[in-house]
């Protein structure tokens, strides 16, 4: 199966300095494959190379070496641009146009006939929650509204592959929810979504695959479940009304026990702590279960650790053969 997005050893050097320009490597030999239908989270701190990667894929900058393909065609192919959508980071459009006119302009570039163009513009703006404002000049738009217009232009042509650079940036909680809903809707329609973010909760809620970049290099990649090391690292029980005798026995088995309220206890068990057995025992002694949670490393932890590893120059241990990610292959699926 052809990858929706494929890069091989993609590298970009910028030259910094006026009198004696020195090369600065913004992206270092990035190789990724994104399967059709995947929601791919491209994560990393600011300045990691996320935007550079997206610009390379849109051919807004040209690679120093390596190659990039979208839908089996070289990045920058005019034909393939009919089938993709792109939202730049902090998008900016034309002050003098209204949202409707902007989408009209872009719709014409896609060669949409007038009637279809009008229908699509109206439906897309409705979908993104741009209602009465659509007839206002864009210079009067707030950052959040501009982001919505940006998303509208990105999905106007009903793209097969959607590239979003920090789509949640500048949005309030309602806006974030709408964007998340839009992305899920696109995913359900079988579209491929490639989005960059430094907000990890977005990736946790949406992505089937993620890649983490730091200092221009791929630091980790894989299915979210693999990366998060979903293997349970322990259990956390919150119980109420534990009798003192049971509590003593508990302390011997638990990693930690601490009181949070009068007779409420947080009990941390090791991964092999068999919480079912303990629960039965405590219930028999008259204690009441408030909550039971598995303890896992969060994406945040993975993120910080991988970034630190790359920063120290250590070879990242991705659990993959090289810094290459094969997404959506055998056994691939959504978490």
């Amino acid at each position, binding site marked *: 199966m052809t990858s929706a997005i494929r890069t091989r050893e993609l590298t970009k050097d910028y030259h910094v300095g006026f009198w004696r320009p020195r090369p600065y490597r913004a992206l270092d030999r990035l190789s990724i494959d994104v399967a059709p239908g995947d929601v791919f989270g491209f994560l990393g701190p600011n300045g990691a190379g996320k935007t550079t990667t997206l610009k390379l894929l849109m051919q*807004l*900058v040209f690679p120093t070496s390596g190659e990039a393909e979208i839908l089996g065609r070289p990045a920058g192919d005019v*034909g393939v*641009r009919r089938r993709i959508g*792109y939202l730049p980071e902090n998008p*900016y*459009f034309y002050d003098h146009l209204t949202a409707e006119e902007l989408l009209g302009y872009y719709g014409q570039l896609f*060669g949409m006939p007038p009637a279809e163009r009008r229908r699509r513009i109206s439906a897309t703006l409705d979908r993104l929650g741009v209602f009465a404002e659509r007839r206002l000049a864009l210079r009067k738009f707030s950052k959040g509204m501009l982001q919505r217009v940006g998303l509208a232009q990105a999905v106007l042509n009903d793209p097969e592959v959607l*590239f979003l650079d920090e789509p949640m940036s500048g949005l309030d909680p309602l806006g974030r929810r709408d964007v998340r809903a839009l992305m899920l809707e696109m995913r359900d329609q079988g579209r491929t979504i490639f989005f960059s973010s430094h907000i990890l909760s977005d990736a946790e809620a949406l992505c089937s695959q993620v890649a983490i970049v730091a200092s221009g290099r791929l630091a980790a990649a894989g299915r979210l479940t693999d990366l998060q090391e979903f293997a349970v690292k322990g259990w956390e029980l919150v119980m109420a009304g534990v009798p003192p005798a049971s509590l003593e026995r508990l302390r011997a088995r638990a990693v930690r026990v601490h009181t949070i309220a009068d007779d409420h206890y947080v009990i941390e068990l090791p991964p092999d702590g068999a919480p079912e057995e303990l629960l039965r025992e405590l219930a028999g002694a008259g204690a009441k279960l408030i909550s039971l949670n598995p303890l896992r490393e969060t994406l945040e932890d993975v993120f910080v650790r991988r970034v630190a590893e790359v920063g120290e120059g250590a070879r990242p241990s991705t659990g993959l053969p090289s810094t290459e990610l094969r997404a959506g292959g055998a056994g691939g699926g959504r978490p």
Partner: protein
Amino acid sequence: MNAARCVAVAVFRESVRDRVFYNLVIFALLLVGASILIGQLTAGQDVKIIKDLGLAATSLFGLFIAIFVGINLVSKEVERRSVYPLLAKPIRRSEFIAGKYAGLLLTLLVNTAVMTIAIYAVLFFLSRGVPERIQHAWEAPAMDPALLKAIALIYLDLAVVTAVALFFSTYSSPMLSAAFTLGVYVVGQFNADLKRFDQIVDSPPAIFIAKACYYVLPDFAKFDVKLAVVHGIPVSVAYMLSTTGYAAAYVAALLFGAMVIFSRRDFK
């Protein structure tokens, strides 16, 4: 070419919304005001002065638009990053440049056409009621169709200036582009002098540089037949055609250069 047409229409629309055509109001006021003021002068002189003033103003106002809109055509889009979503659409970078150029050319066409109508209108009112025999004594008739030749060459001059501005704006900032374009325009006015530089100066390097400038820079003086037309000196069709060819060659070369530079540019 559909993509280039879309860009051209967008440029024209932006010109309208940016009130570029407000200059027409000033132009009209200038002409009408001047005609009232000089209406007191000897019959015949006022017609000549209006022609002079009208053609000079058409050229000057057009020049302002060509330079100050021209330098922003590309650089503003790059600076404000509106070019990012645009170039991710099915459009080649060369079509983007062609569209930008065509859009400003259309703006200038409308501007020049309205100014032409205004000049003829003022000339019509000034010559109204002047006896036939007096009109016969004039160097050129008031409603002289030859004025159109001068205006056509002004338009070609503006087309070349726009191409120069667009060329610079594909790789430098608006301020620098404006300075470069104005520089080229001013030096281009004295292009003929550069050719004769060896008659004034002895230094071979200076002569070489002057000759090089003569061959590289457009000769803007070629487009100026205002004086001849006002004084009724005929401008031949052959001259019109050769000057048109000259402008077309310059515009083609500059646009090609702009397209090549822009097509390779990284948008950091």
